[in-house]
Each structure stands twice: as C-alpha cells, then as structure tokens.
C-alpha cells in the first residue's frame, strides 16, 4: 500500500487562497484492460458572479476524442504535435445520470445550439435559477472510455494518462451583472480554463499499478479483488489529473523555497528511462526553486513529474496540470548537455505558475500562459545551466535557450494574426505556436531589455503576486506592467500584441565619399563664381550616409553602431516612435565607414537579426572556408562513387 502523504494540501495549511467556486468529489474505478472509468461525481458550485444562472454548461472533454465530428478532430485533422490519432482507439465520456437536488435532469442535457456535431460541451438547464452567491450541488454518474493516447490524454499499452476525464463546469466571465459562461468546445490549439476549487478524488485501481495524481494522498485501503482505493485531496487547484502504470518507479528530491519551506518533487518513470528521470528531477527541483523565487512561492507540498513511456511520449508528454505535469524529450539524441529534456520539464513545471496559479484563459489568451512561461523559462534555464549554455553545451557547441529558439523559429513572414488572438482563431497551428510561444517570449524579452532586466523582473513578480489564484487577462498584465514600470507602455503593447506587422528593421543604405567644401557655380552676374576641385579640394575626411528603415508596425528605440576603418566606433540612437519609418544619419570622420550594426547588443528580440550587422566591403574568407568544407565532403563522395 502506498505511503500516505502527511502534509496538508496547501503547504503549511492555512486559509483558502482562491474563491473555490467549483469543488468536486469524485469516485472512479479504472478497468485497466478496457481502459474505462466508471465514476460518480458531485460538484458543489457557487455562483460567484453578480447575475443569476439558469443553465450550467459542462465540458465533456473526452468526447473530443469520440469521432471525427468533434472540433478537436476537425481542427487538428487528426494530428497534434506530429502525433496521429488512432483510428481504433476512440474515447468518450458518457453521462449515465445527472441529478440536481435529487431531481433527475438527465433527459434535459443537450449540446449547445452551435455544437455542429461536437459533443465536448453539454448544457444543463436548471429548474431553479442559482442566485448570486448561492450554491448548487450537481451529481453525475458517468462512464469514461479513455482514447488511445492522443493530445495528452489516454492509454498506451498499460500506461494510462487520465486527464480531462470528468464533467467539468465552465467559468463565469465578463463584467459584474453581465457575466456569461465561458465553456468552449476543445479545439486543437486551445487548452483549458476553469475555476479554482477543492478536489476529493477516490480512485479504485489495480494494486499492481503505480499512481500519481494531483494533490496529496490522504487515504489508501484495500478494495478487494486485486484493487485498492486511493483518496487524493487538493485545494486551490482548477483541475485534477492522474496517471496509472504498473511499471513505473518513482524517485524524489526536495526543493528548498525562498520562504524556507520545502516541496517534495517526484519523478515517475520506467526503468529504462532512469537516466533521464534523474535529469528531469534535477530540472524540476531547480524550476520549483527558481520560479518560486522569481514570482510567488509554490503553494502545494508536492510536484509530480510523469516521464511517459517512449511510445507514449509524443502524445502524452509535455502537458501541465496543477501539481502534476508530464514531460518529454527522452531520446538517445538528447545527450547530457543537450538540454531538451530539462527544458521540457522546466517549461511544464513553469506552467504551475503561468496558468496553474495565474489561471488565465488558455483558449482566449494562450500567449498569457505559454508565451509568458517561455519568457520565464529562459531565465530559469539560464540560472540553472549558465547563460551561454542554458540549452546546449555539447561537443564544443553552446547555445542559449532564447537565442537558439529565436534563431530556429522566428518566422521570415508575418503570421496573419496578432499575438493576442484566441487560440482557436489562428489560421493554423504553426501560426498559433509562433505567436503564442515564440513571438510573445521575444516581445517580453525586448521590453525587458528596453526597460532594464531588474525592473522588469520586479514588475512581473508584482503581477504574479497581484493575480495569484485569480483569472488575469492580458489587459490586466499590460496595465500592471505600465503601472509598475512607471510609464505608459501602450506604444509597445498595442502594436506588438494587437497588430500584425511586427518589427522589420533594416539598413537601407550606407556609403561614404570624400568630404570637401561645396563645388559648382555660385552667385549671379558678375558675382558668379565657379568653385572647382582646386578651390574646394577634398578635406581628407569622409562624409558617410547611413539610412535605416523600419517597415513594420512596432517601433522601438534602436541603438546603431558605426565602425570605421581606423577601428573607431560611433554610437547612434534612432527612436522612430512617431517620427516616421526611416532616418538618415550623416557622419563626417577622418576614417571611412566599414561596418554598420543595428542593435549591436541584440536587445531587440522581435526582429530577425540576420542582416542587422552589415559590412560595406564584402569579405569572402568565410565563404572560402565553407567552400573548402563542401569540397572536402564532395571529394569523399567522389571517392565512394569513383576511384
């Protein structure tokens, strides 16, 4: 029998951190052969809005895996993150009954009017409206068929990743008195949004299986016939996920937080992945410590990291739930020093802040958790593994996380949607990913470098403190940053997050000619005088023109460095905010201009810097070296095909 966790669900106990609007009691029994759950659920929901409610919408997420008519299948075309849906392993969630105050309302359940064949949301009309501040209990009995793992949920062989598996109520959003339900169907790009609450979940599972779950284990009893019932309790979380597998081992360590508390970090893994599990454990401990120091301390006593079996990794790996995440990246190609597994773990653990604690709407504002988390990941990885080697330190190759990701992913063409676009409204998953992850990270990095790292980190910490256990929006983040940084930043947030166009910085022209007094014909009549090269000889200095342009919509101050033939440099600054899209600089020097470097300190992460550094006279030495490499390669091939 597994050891009971002795700690309270919140570290140190204490009062509720959130409004706890949606509280669940669930009893579920797993059939590991059929991959089904038979369960009962009692939801205690409090209407925290200022308007009356006469209908309750519920997510039945598993129905997104039911058939090809679901929005998930239609929007993903059966493929998420290069992983294909199984044609034989469909999943579903069947409501067997629903009662409110003892009245059977099962027959009243119906899909929303605009469902269009999707069954992942269902509406329950109430016989009695729920007044503001009032509480209602809804009792479900349901059967869940887990799909063959796809889009982070399901089974693969004996491995069960049980997520988004129970009827889950929507969230009231909008201004007081005019609230509406937010309960969209599951889309391939969008993740989740739910109210905080408590969860008491009793899982009856095979005694042979290792279980990891959200919250703390409060009870474990033998249920007979080779089964046992494990009861978990979680507080101030907005989801509950669990994993069952007969082959998993667990290793653990302790994260020491800034508030002098500790968090037990556990990694669940199969024996063949033990070496990777150690790496995940170190990364997870480091992430819990660093995120706690950067934002708010991790509030729960346990952090569980699931390292899925290799054949389930692409489908089940890389997902976040409160106090439990799945990681990925285990591969022979991820040699020690190639920190992809560590990066995935840091990213998923980081989500316990950006969406776990700061519970933004992942469907409407995916960038607010994914992109902000990406930005924070770069800091945490740099602190854990060194600035220059945060992603890569292998065989002489080094790479900083944000720089490598930027170079590998920055789009050469603008996506047709702004960053602050709802996840389901992007033209495709590539545009969603580029905007929500990379572009957001680069935007925050650019702002951080513009205002100073210390100040920006302090402002982000203030944001975390202000909105912990609430549902922050992008607007609230912008307002808080403007307030904390003491300046109106609408000039930045508007075009960066709400407009298409980005930042397209370029050197338009650079050149020098010998300087001299004006030549030509001057004056009229008898006073007419022709000044020739003899009267106005070259002064021995150079007059250099540099024209820079920005054809994007985002305008930020740009540092420009000019380098001259004698080794001297000159720094310029171009602030094109409100001054137009181009600027001409004229410099007179004793030495000729040889290089122009826009943004030499690489502060502007939003733009592609490939052509930012330009030398006026071409130099083919590197091209020759590259040619030598290719010729050597060619000669090897020649010797294989010929003598």
């Amino acid at each position, binding site marked *: 029998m597994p050891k009971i966790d002795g700690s309270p669900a919140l570290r140190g106990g204490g009062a509720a951190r959130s409004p706890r609007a949606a509280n669940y009691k669930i009893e579920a029994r797993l059939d590991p052969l059929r991959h089904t759950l038979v369960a009962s659920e009692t939801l205690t929901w409090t209407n925290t809005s200022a308007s009356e409610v006469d209908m309750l919408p519920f997510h039945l997420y598993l129905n997104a895996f039911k058939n090809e008519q679901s929005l998930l299948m239609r929007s993903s075309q059966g493929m998420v993150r290069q992983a294909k849906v199984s044609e034989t392993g469909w999943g579903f969630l069947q409501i067997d009954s629903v009662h409110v105050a003892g009245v059977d309302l099962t027959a009243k359940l119906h899909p929303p009017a605009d469902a269009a064949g999707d069954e992942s949301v269902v509406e329950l009309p109430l016989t009695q409206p729920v007044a503001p501040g009032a509480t209602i209990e809804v009792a479900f009995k349901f059967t869940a068929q887990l799909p063959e793992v796809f889009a982070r949920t399901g089974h693969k062989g004996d491995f069960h990743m049980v997520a988004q598996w129970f009827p889950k109520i929507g969230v009231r959003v909008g201004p007081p008195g005019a609230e509406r339900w937010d309960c969209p169907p599951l889309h391939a790009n969008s993740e989740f949004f739910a109210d905080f609450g408590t969860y008491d979940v009793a899982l009856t599972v095979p005694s042979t299986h290792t279980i990891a779950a959200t919250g703390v284990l409060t009870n474990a009893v033998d249920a007979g016939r080779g089964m046992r019932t494990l009861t978990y309790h979680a507080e101030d979380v907005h989801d509950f996920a669990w994993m069952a597998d007969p082959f998993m081992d667990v290793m653990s360590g302790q994260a020491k937080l800034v508030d002098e508390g500790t968090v037990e970090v556990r990694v669940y893994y199969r024996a063949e992945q033990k070496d990777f599990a150690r790496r995940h454990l170190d990364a997870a401990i480091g992430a819990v410590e660093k995120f706690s120091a950067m934002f708010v301390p991790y509030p729960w006593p346990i952090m569980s990291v699931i390292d899925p079996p290799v054949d389930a990794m692409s489908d089940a790996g890389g997902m976040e739930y409160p106090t439990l995440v799945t990681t990925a990246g285990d591969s*022979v190609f991820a040699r020690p020093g190639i920190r992809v597994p560590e990066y995935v773990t840091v990213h998923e653990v980081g989500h316990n802040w950006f969406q776990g604690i700061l519970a933004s709407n992942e469907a409407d504002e995916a960038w607010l958790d994914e992109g902000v988390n990406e930005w924070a990941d770069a800091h945490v990885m740099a602190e854990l593994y060194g600035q220059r080697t945060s992603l890569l330190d292998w065989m002489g190759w080094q790479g900083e996380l944000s720089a490598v990701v930027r170079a590998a992913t920055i789009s*050469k063409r603008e996506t047709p949607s702004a960053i602050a676009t709802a996840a389901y409204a992007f033209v495709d998953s590539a545009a969603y990913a580029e905007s929500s992850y990379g572009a957001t990270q680069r935007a925050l990095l650019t702002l951080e470098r513009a205002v100073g790292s210390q100040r920006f980190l302090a402002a982000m910490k203030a944001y975390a403190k202000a909105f912990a256990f609430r549902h922050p929006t992008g607007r609230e983040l912008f307002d808080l940053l403007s307030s904390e940084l003491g300046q109106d930043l609408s000039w930045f947030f508007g075009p960066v997050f709400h407009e298409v166009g980005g930042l397209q910085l370029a050197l338009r022209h650079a050149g020098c000619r010998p300087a001299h007094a004006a030549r030509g014909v001057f004056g009229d009549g008898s006073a007419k005088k022709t000044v020739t090269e003899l009267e106005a000889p070259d002064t021995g200095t150079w007059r250099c023109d540099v024209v820079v342009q920005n054809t994007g919509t985002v305008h930020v101050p740009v540092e420009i460095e000019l380098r001259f033939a004698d080794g001297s440099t000159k720094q310029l600054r171009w602030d094109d905010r409100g001054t137009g899209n181009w600027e001409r600089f004229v410099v007179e020097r004793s030495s000729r201009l040889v290089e122009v470097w826009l943004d030499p300190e690489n502060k502007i992460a939003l733009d592609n810097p490939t052509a930012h550094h330009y030398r006026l006279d071409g130099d083919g030495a590197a091209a020759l070296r*590259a040619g030598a490499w290719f010729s050597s390669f060619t000669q090897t091939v020649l010797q294989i095909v010929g003598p």
Partner: protein
Amino acid sequence: MARLGLGDLIGAGPRAVSRYTGTLLAVFVVQSLIAATCMIAVALVFAQAFAHLPLFDDAVDGDLVALLYCLRYGKPSLVATGGIVFAAVVLWQLASWFLVGGLNGVLAQRPEGRGDTARCFGASGAATYLAYARLALCALPGWVVVLFVFGTATSLVSSHIVHALTVPELIGALAVAVLPAALLLHLLWTVSDYARVELTLRHDTHDPGVIATYLRTLSYVLRRPVTLVHGAIGWLLFGLVTAAYAYLAQGHPMYGAGGAVTLFVARAGVSLLRMAFRFGVLAGQIELGRTRPLPPRRIEVNLDSKS
C-alpha cells in the same frame, strides 16, 4: 595457376602504389581539380549571399545561433551548393569510367616508363569506356533492389530508431536498417569492380558481352568470398581514415583565408590516402581477375560464305 589468397590480394596493393605512384597522383590531381572547382563555385555562391554579413563568419567558425540564422536565411545558397555538389558527382561518375578503365589497363598490362604508362592508361580508358557505361546501366536494377531493401528494413525499425534511449539501442536499430542494404550494396559493387576487370583483361582477346560478364562475375563473386572480404578491407580502411581525420579535426576551426588553404591541403592528404587504398584494392582485383576462367570467345560467323 596458383589460387590467390587474401594476403596476395592485399599485397598487390602496396606494390602497385609504389610502382605506379605517378599514375595514382595523376588521377588524384584530376579529382582534386574537380574538388577545387567545387570549392570555388560554392565559395562564390556563399560570398554572393553572405560576404557583407559578419554573421556568416561566426556561423562558419562554429556559432550555433549564427549557423541557424544562415541556414534559414540562405536556403537558396544551400540549394545552389547542393546542385554544385551533385553536378560534381555526376561529372566524376562519367569521368570515372575512363579513369578506372585506364587504371585497370595499367595494372593489367604493367607498362614501363611514363610515356608507355600514359599511353596505356589513355588507350585502356578509351577502349573500355562504353563497355563500362553499359555495365553501369546493367547494374542499375541492382541499385533499385538495394534501395528497396534499405527502405523496407528502415521502415521495420523506424520506431526503434525514433524511440532509442541509449547508443547501443540506436546502433542495433541502425544496423538492422542499414546492414542488409550495405551488404547487398557491397556485393553489387564488388561484382561491378570484377566485371570491369574482366572487361579490361579480356577486351582485346574475347570481347565479352557486358550482360554476360556481369552475370558471370556475379556467380564468380558468390563462389569466391575472398573478393568480398578484400573489398570490405578497402572500405574499412577508407572509413577509418575518414573517421580518424574527423576526430582529429574536431574542435580545431581554422580562421582566415590561409586557414581555408591549410584545410584544403590537409583534407587533400586524407583524400590521397583514401585513393591509395582504392587503387590498392583495384590492383588486388586485377591480380585475382587474371586467375578467373576465361570467358567464352565471341566468334563471328559469316553466313554468306557458306553458300
């Protein structure tokens, strides 16, 4: 004639290299000229795209981030470079029928003196060029089979390659994917080599047909595994020299245009060594080829003379 063993075949290599060093160097010069032309063409392509961007210098000197930008920014240059390399390989393949014919001729006839050697080389290369070209066409179905075997074996173990967690697991999966095709490729390659030897040795006396020669040689190679072992030793040495150079060169980027020349010279040395191995293998194949049973002699019958 005494039956030759592996030692005899291997021993023929150094003898041939020491006796016909000039011939070997001449072929190497031709190959190096093609490689150097390739280097200049590639350098021009890259210079066109990157001569004004110091970022490319960093990329060539091993800056990963700069390299990523250049790869993404310079895709047309990379495509052009691929085209140049492909053209060089095709050109060399066409030239190799003449060059191998010349080398086989020299090794078979063992001429003395530079002049005779050069004449022998040219005459043999020219005499067998079209026969070698037809032989290459004849061997094409075999390459298709190699590709099919490789594709099938790879698809069988692709999930093991993707999901490998350790180096032994990866090597095991790759071995299953590559070995069957590699062995078949080696067999077909050896058959082509010995068929060329036959075409050279018996060109003047028997004028053997290409298809018949290929099929007879296939049968011969299957009956004499020493042919495969001998060829494999040559490839093993080839691979070892390449790997040793790659290992020694690791982490030693050379800067400046002078570095490029140094690099070219160092790599040329490696290439020369590898060519010497290939030449040595050819010499062994000629030695063994001499001991093969003679092919049927082609007899022309003039039907008109009967009447």
